[in-house]
Structures are given as C-alpha cells and as structure tokens.
C-alpha cells in the first residue's frame, strides 16, 4: 500500500511512502485497493490526485472540502499549494468579493 484514500468522495490520497514518477502506486481505501500511475515524485505524507481535477473545483479529503483547485490538477500529480488554494482566512480577498473571483 502506497497511499491512503480516506473517503470515497476524495479526489486526493495521502502518500504513506515516497512515490516516484512512473511507478504504479497501490491506493488503499480501506477494503479496496486501486492502482494509479504516478506522474511526478510525491514526498512522504503529501497528496496525490487520484482523478483529474478541473480549475475551480472544490477539492475533498476526509470527505470534506479542503480548498479548491487554482489550476487543473492531473491524476497522478502532486496536489499541494501550487494547485490548491484555501477558501478560508483570505484577508487578501476584498470583502465585497468573498468568492475571490478577481
């Protein structure tokens, strides 16, 4: 087992060992295990997308929203600060524009 999918609704899994570009990783979601082609190196504890995520889509882990995709995230790539943004604590967003759409 290489990564954990914590909830069936999640689009990201947590790597429980370092994953290497090109490998086929075993993604465990409790009872079932799926295989996933890894496209880039994923450090220990970091997240890998288990499906393509379009820009602007909410991203789920634990079955809950952890943010949204700030650009397209391809399945098998590293899902982290470079492509997921937080929806909370955004003092940088103007008050009249809480959705942050410019």
């Amino acid at each position, binding site marked *: 087992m290489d990564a954990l999918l914590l909830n069936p609704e999640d689009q990201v899994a*947590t790597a429980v060992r370092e994953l290497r570009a090109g490998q086929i990783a075993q993604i465990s979601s409790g009872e079932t295990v799926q295989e996933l082609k890894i496209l880039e190196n994923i*450090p220990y504890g970091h*997240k890998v997308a288990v499906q393509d995520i379009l820009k602007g889509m909410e991203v789920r882990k634990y079955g809950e*929203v952890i943010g949204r995709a700030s650009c397209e995230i391809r399945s098998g790539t590293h899902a982290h*600060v470079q492509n997921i943004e937080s929806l*909370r604590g955004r003092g940088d967003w103007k008050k009249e524009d809480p959705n942050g759409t410019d």
Partner: protein
Amino acid sequence: MEPIEYEQTAEENRACGETFLGYVRSDGSVGTRNYVGILSTVVCANEVAEEIARRVSGTVRFTHHQGCCQTPVDIRRVTEVLANLGKNPNLSSVLLVSLGCESTDVDAVEQQIRASGKRVERVTIQEQGGAAKTTAQGILLAQEMVREASRQKRSPAPVSRLIMGMKCGSSDTTSGLVPNPAIGEVSDWLVSKGGTSILGEVTEFIGAEHIVASHAADEELGGKILELVRRMEQRAMSVGEDIRGGQPTGGNIKGGLTTIEEKSLGAIAKAGSAKIQEVREYGERPQGCGLAVMDSPGREPEILTGLASAGSNLIVFATGRGAPQGFPFVPVIKITGSETAMKNMPDHMDLDLTGVMRGEMTLPEAAERIREKLLSVASGELTKAEISGYTNSMDIYMTGPVI
C-alpha cells in the same frame, strides 16, 4: 502459587487503569508534579524569576512578555492567567516576582492563589532595593518552600482527577491520521471515567467548525464554538492577507498540509466522539468534567500556557515534524505517527506510533499506548521535554496592542 500471582497482577493492572499516583492538594485537585512555582508578574521581572529558579532545585519558573502598557482587557487576562497558573495542581506553592509598577493586579493574583489553599510569597524588585537583593530574598524563600514541598508524597488518585490538555504542533499529514485520532480515543476514555479533556487551537477549527459544533452538548454551545471561530478568522483576516504561511505554517506545508481547512480537519480528530460540555475563554478553568473547548491560538507558548491556566495537570501533544516544547510545570507528552519526527527529532519524541502508518499497529492499539504513557507520566515518569528542560519560552495570549 502461579495462578494467584497471575490474578494479583491482573488486578493490579486493572487498578492501574483506574488510578494514578499524584499529589493531592487542599482544594481537592491532584498534581502530577510537585514544584514550587516562581511566577513573574510582568515582563520586567523575568530576569529575577529566572535567576531564582536557576539557583533553587525543585522550582520552576513561568516568565512571559506581558503585564504592562496594555489595554485593560489584556491586563485583566494577565491577572487571571497568572492566578490560574498559580492554582494549577502541579504547583505545591508559589513565589510571585513583581517589579512593583506593573499593571498586573498582583494583589488579586496573590489572593486568588492563596484562596486555593496554597502558600504564596511575593518579592518586589522596586521595594526590595533592586534585582540582586530581590534575587537573594527570593532564593531564601524558595529554598524554604522546596523543603516544605519535598515532604509531600504521591498517593493513589482516580483518573477522574486528570485534566488532559490536548495540542498538536508542527503537524504534517500523519498528525490527522495517527496521533490526533488516537488522542481522540484517549479523550473519550478519560471522559467516560469522569475526567476532563480540553481542546484549544480554535484557529485549527477553521474549515472544520461545522464538525466541532456538531459535537456540542447543546445548540447554544455549538453557537459559541462557531462564534469563537468567526472571531479568530476575522482577526486573522483583518491584516488583509492570505493566512497561508502563518496557517498552515511553512513547516506544515513542507509536511504536506496544503490549506488551513485540511490542517483543521486533522486537528479536530483530537476531540474524539465525546460531547463538548463547555466552551471557555482563553485560560479559563472548566467548571465541570468532560470535554471542554477553550479559545486559544495554535502557537505553542500561548496554548500551552492557556491549557496550564485552565488547570491541565498533563498535556498530550501530537506532532508530525517534531515540536520540542514542553511547559515548565505540566508534563507534555510528545506523540508522533510520522517517520519525519522519529528520524529527525528522536530525543524529543515520547511515543512512537509510526507503526500505524506502516500498517503494523491499529489505531486502538495506538490509543492504548497513549493511555499507558499518560498514566505513567501522571504518576511521575518524566517526559523528554522535562528532562531536556525545553520548557521555558512561554507567553500569554493577548488580543490587543502593546500601547
């Protein structure tokens, strides 16, 4: 003979599961430690408090950066927190070190601690004639107080007397998978035995507050939790920037945590499944037993102080990358499920739960390991933070400016 011995051992084990050896105080609380506390009442008295504690074995010092040139709401908080720290059951008696001109209400601090049945002494630098004379006077008083304290013995106390502070720090993605949910199970166990556990770090409810609020015993408490989170988020946002980098921290991000929402969803696993019975302001003592929520930020110096002020006699601390801090007079048990912390920070980790990530240990087994460690530390086993003395960079959480 052997079956009898076996039965006795099983009985002892059962008894160990329900009691710990602690110092019973006159107000009925039970300490897991028995120090003489040297408390600085203002930043300007820190040097003297430090020196007294350095020179007298059996003492610990609490120093901070507050107590003067602050708004009344913060001054009241400093006064209340110092009084509550003095009342913490892990202190046998208290020596207050005052400058003399601070805003902290030192009389109130002294009276409140004394009302809990403890000996309290005070030395005042401006009245005594400077730091050197005050240090000498404080050392002599502290020596006498340590002698008194050393006569106290540990005796069996029910686990219902444990007040367990909960904290996670320098988290990575393993924190929400291993130590936090395992701590949640231990919290549920402690609550079922009539004990108390305290959940702080309201910043780390952001994005998960709907789940925390659903644990509230009633709607009003749920509303209070949501209000604490709203207040904390507004405060963070008022500076006009994205909180990322501050929360999650740079270290959290290196550990794979991407957003505050993700960090929060892992952090709140410490709450377990018990109902939240109380919602308190920073440093306030829960009035009853069970699971309580206390307002506090996530940073170590302030939350550890807040948990100690709330009466915690021990603290469980989940970490992913390896946070070293303890607290001067409350044992802080460092628990990790991360290879990163075990590899890079082994001399700061008290409990290795990395087996869960490797699939070699279950979460209930991990919780059992924590429970055993908790009772052992409560009865006197030293934590690595206590042994290394990595406990002194503390502070009190303030809400207003220095003026």
